[in-house]
C-alpha cells in the first residue's frame, strides 16, 4: 500500500509550489493559476483522506471546492477584465495605486 503520508506530502509540496507561484509571478493570470494549483493540492489530500478514512466527506468537499473554484474563476477573471479595461496592464507589481 501507498502510505497516506505520501499523498499528504505530495499535497504539501504542490501547495507550496502554488504559494511560490503566487509570490513570484508577475502576470495576474499566472498568479490565479497558482491559486488554482493550491486548491488542487488540497483536493488531492482530501481525496486521499477520504479514501484512507473510508469516509465520503472528503470527496463531497472536493466537489464543493471545484464548484467554488469555478465560481471564483468566473468572478476573478471578470475582475481582471474590469481592471484591464481601465489599466491596460496585469503586471502585478505595477498595481499599487492604493498603498501606504
Amino acid at each position, binding site marked *: 500500500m501507498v502510505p497516506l503520508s505520501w499523498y499528504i506530502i505530495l499535497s504539501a509540496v504542490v501547495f507550496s509550489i502554488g504559494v511560490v507561484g503566487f509570490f513570484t509571478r508577475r502576470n495576474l493570470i499566472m498568479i490565479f493559476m497558482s*491559486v488554482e494549483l493550491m486548491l488542487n493540492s*488540497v483536493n488531492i489530500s*482530501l481525496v486521499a483522506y477520504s479514501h484512507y478514512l473510508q*469516509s465520503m466527506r472528503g470527496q463531497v468537499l472536493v466537489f464543493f471546492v471545484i464548484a467554488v473554484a469555478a465560481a*471564483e474563476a468566473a468572478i476573478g477573471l471578470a475582475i481582471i477584465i474590469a481592471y484591464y479595461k*481601465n489599466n491596460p496592464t496585469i503586471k502585478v507589481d505595477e498595481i499599487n*495605486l*492604493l498603498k501606504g
Partner: protein
Amino acid sequence: MDMSSGFSLLSIRPLVPELTMICTALILMLLDLIVKKKEVVAGVGIAGTLVALYGTLKLYGFSEPQAVFSDMFVLDGYSNFFRLIFYLNVILTICISLRYMVIEKASFGEYYALLIFATTGMMIMASASDLIVLYLGLELMALSTYILAGMMRKQPRSNEAALKYFFLGAFSSAFFLYGISLTYGLTGTTNLKDIAASLQALNITGNPMVFLGLIFMIVAFGFKIALAPFHMWAPDVYEGAPTSVTAFMSVGPKAAGFAVLGRVLFSAFGAMQVQWDSILIPLAIITMATGSIIALAQTNIKRMLAYSSIAHAGYMLLGIIAGTPGGLASTANYLMIYAIMNIGAFAVVIMLRREGFQGENLDDYMGLAKSHPVASALMLVFMFALTGIPPTAGFIGKFYVFMEVINAGYTYLAVIAVVFSVISAFFYLRVVMYMYMRDPREEVALTTSPSMNFVLAVTAVMILVIGVFPSVLLDLVKSSIPGLL
C-alpha cells in the same frame, strides 16, 4: 446513511431568515429589471431584511439550540445575535448607499442583491456547525463582497481594490481549505462538535498536525477579520471600494469572521485553548499595534478608518482570547457596538462625497464644525465612540472586553490594549481637531438624504443610549451567548 435522517419541512424552519434573505435578493434582481427607481429596490431590500429580522426574533424564542441538516446548521442564540449585527449592517448600509451610489454612477439593482447575498453568506457562517457549510458560507459572502468592492467599474481604485481583495481572499481560502483537510484527515470529520469529540477520543489535542490545521484556519479567519499580519489587504480595499461597501465590509465580514472564529475555536478546538491562545495573543498585540500606529500617518479618512478597524479587531480578539463564554459575549457585544459606530462614521464620510469632490481627505474636514455643526457633532460622537471614551457605547464595548480578558487572567493584555487605545485616540482626535479647531479651507457642501439622516440619527442615538444604558444590549448578548454547543 438512510433517508430518514434527511429532512422534513420542519427542519427548514430555522433557515427561514436565510431563505427570506435569498428570496429577497432574487426579488431584487427581478425588480431591478422592472422598476427604474432604485429607492424602491432598496426599500424592498430593507423590507425583506426586516422580514428576516422578524423571523430571527421569532426564532429567538427557542430555548434550546437547534441543529438541522445533519448537524450542519445550528440555530442558537449565538448565531441569532450575530444575525442581528448583520441585519443592522445591511439595513444601514443600504440606507447610506442610496444617494452615494448614484453619485458614484454605480447604482445597480444588483448592488442591493449582492449586499443581501453577502449578508446571507454571513448568516450561514454564523450558523455553520460544519466546516463544509462554513466554507461555502464564507465563499458566498466573500464572492459577493469581491464584486461589491469592484462595483465602481470605471474607477481604477475600485478595480484595484476588488482585484487585491479577490486574489488575497482566494489565497486565504486555499489556506482555509488546507486547514480543513488536515483537520478532516486527523479527526475524520468536519463537524465541529464531532471534531471536539474526536480530539478528546483520540487524545490528539497536542498533535502538531492538528495544530497546523488550526493555524491555517486561523490564518484564513485572521484574513477575514483583518488581523495583522493578515490584514494588509484591508487598507487598500477599504480605500478603493465604494465607501458604502467599505462600511459594509468593515463590519459584516469582520463580524462573520469573528462568529466563525469563535465557534470553531470554542466548539471544535475548545480543548486546545492553550494552543490557540498562544497564537492569538501575539496576533492581537501585533494587530492593535499595527492598526493604532500606522493609522497615525494616514491622511485619507477611509484608509484611517481601515487601520482603525484593524485595531478594533485586535481589541475584539481579546474576548476570544479570554476563552470564556463571557469573553465570546464581550466580543459579540463589541462587534455590535462597533457596527453602529463605524457605520455612523462612514455615513459622515459619505456625506462629504459629492459630484466632483471625493471628500476623503482629512483636509476636507477642516473647519467643518463652522459650516455643518450638526454633522461635525455627530462625527465627534462617532470618533469619541471609536476611541472608547464614555459615555459612548465604544466604552462599553471596550470595558466588557477588558473585563473578560482580565477575568481570564490576562491583565497584561488589557494594559497593552489600553495603551494602544490611547495611541489610537490621537488619530480619532485629529479628525475632531480638524473639524473644530481648524479654519475651513474651502466650503464643503454635504450630500444629505432622508435615509442618510435616519442612519445618522439612529447610530448616534444608539451610541449614546448604549453608552449610558448598556443593560439592554448586555442582557441580550449575555442571554444569547451562554456558551456554545
